[in-house]
């Protein structure tokens, strides 16, 4: 069962703001979904190794050849805020 506190903790981990209403609905919806997912406990997975990827490839290597990249203006064209070719964000550290 996913209670309000668990919902709030997980939302915090995901940096996802939720409204009061969402906290309630997600709690009951996630509980219901996880209830169905419990069926996984019935599967006999002893001695089975996990599959992380459907690809039949492992550790793909290639030559590390430098290639020209995009000019900063192009990469910053979608940025919400910028200054002198830097991304602009709110202050992360308080002034001491």
């Amino acid at each position, binding site marked *: 069962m*996913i209670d309000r506190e668990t919902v709030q903790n997980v*939302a915090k981990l995901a940096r*996802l703001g939720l409204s009061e209403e969402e906290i309630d609905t997600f709690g009951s*919806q996630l509980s219901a979904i996880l209830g169905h997912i419990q069926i*996984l406990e019935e599967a006999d*997975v002893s001695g089975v*190794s996990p599959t992380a*990827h*459907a690809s039949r*490839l492992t550790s793909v290597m290639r030559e590390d050849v430098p290639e020209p990249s995009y000019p900063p203006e192009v990469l910053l064209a979608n940025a919400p805020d910028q200054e002198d070719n830097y991304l602009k964000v709110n202050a992360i550290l308080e002034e001491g």
Partner: protein
Amino acid sequence: MTELYKLSIHEAGELLRQRKLSAVELTQAHLDRIRAVDPKVKAFTLVTDELALQQAREADKRFASGENIHPLTGIPIAIKDVICTKDITTTCGSRMLEHFKPPFNATVMERLNDAGIVMVGKTNMDEFAMGSSTEHSAFFPTSNPWDLERIPGGSSGGSAAAVAAGMAMGSYGSDTGGSIRQPGSLCNVVGFKPTYGRVSRYGLVAFASSLDQIGPFARSARDAATLLQTIAGYDHRDSTCSQEPVQDYIKGLSGSIKGMRIGVPEEYWVEGTQPGVVKAVRENIDLLREMGAEISPVSLPHTKYGIAAYYIIAPAEASSNLARYDGVKYGYSYRDTTDMWESLEKTRQYGFGPEVKRRIMLGAYALSAGYYDAYYKRAEKVRTLIRNDFEQAFEHFDALVSPAAPTVAFKIGEISDPYQMYLQDVFTIPANLAGICGVSIPGGFSDGLPVGLQLLGNAFKEDVLLRIADAFEQVTDYHTRWTSAL
């Protein structure tokens, strides 16, 4: 002459090469069709009419000079709005990316542009490809061309509807758990999910990276073969893209399936599948037998765990992939605060819709301390079991056959419970978990609504599925039917 928008890609290509038809005329016919019926279907998030006409004029130059002519040159194509198109909005059906214009083209787009396609527009989808009805688009729901009160399936609902309604001759979508095959089934078009690694994912906005794959929609297997051929093959920019040689899919269309061994998975006859769907699929299986295929039952014993494993693995990968939407680099940004954490949390609160949030929450929960082994690791082990089921089946069979979806198209708003919606993908999810290829082809109708037949093939056996699909079309006419609802 038949309406231009009803031509197949191969018929139109022939007329274009003989210069009996110009790409501009063909494109104009499709733009007219979009203008006439898209206000009802709402398949497009963006119609790129000016670009389309410009590309059509370029195509006509190619035909005039006789150079650089490809089977898709001058062909009007629609692109799911999750595939990056340089300088053209790529919204993923989300407020988060409503105004996002990628600085680059996906590898798939580069190949299509090299072939000289005409892009008529970007298509609507469930937000970040999460959904089975296209109702989770942040902008508007798309209607099923066969019944405008019903959903077209999803998440690639716009791409399926565009082809079914004659607004594009072919289209591309992405399939993470059934997002090409299920809408294909519900809209009476061919929807092909290639083997994982067959098509480059570079420039496909990531949902669940170990499952996502781009594939085509078409109104025939032959057209699907050409659409797949154009995008398949190795790309150094996607390290999961395979170097396995690509077959000549058109050459493989022999028209015969005599002696082919086709398995019918016993576990795919589940409760909740509509009787009309079961009836149509059983009739189709009888037909495949009459065509000379050897049909026998096969067991995929871990099928019942498919949805559960998927709804741990896909949300876990999504919660990680979608961490990039932070309101700093691109996309929607909440700026009405000086606090960095508040800005981040509110950006994601207002930028994402409910289904995306639900999956981020589910994934973050499954990956969090104390639950990782119980959920995520266990799901990955079950994934191995599901993959083993298929490996054993394909030792004895060339292909498997089943329904593509448990129901025909349902009404807009009819399914509100998230888990009930997840059940739409019960027959399609296992193929993504195993990384094999699958296709939904028109397989009849139930009360006037399309039923899709799913064919599953072993990894890199796309040619086998296309051959069966093409042979099936020789003895049926379902794929040739047009909706009368428009």
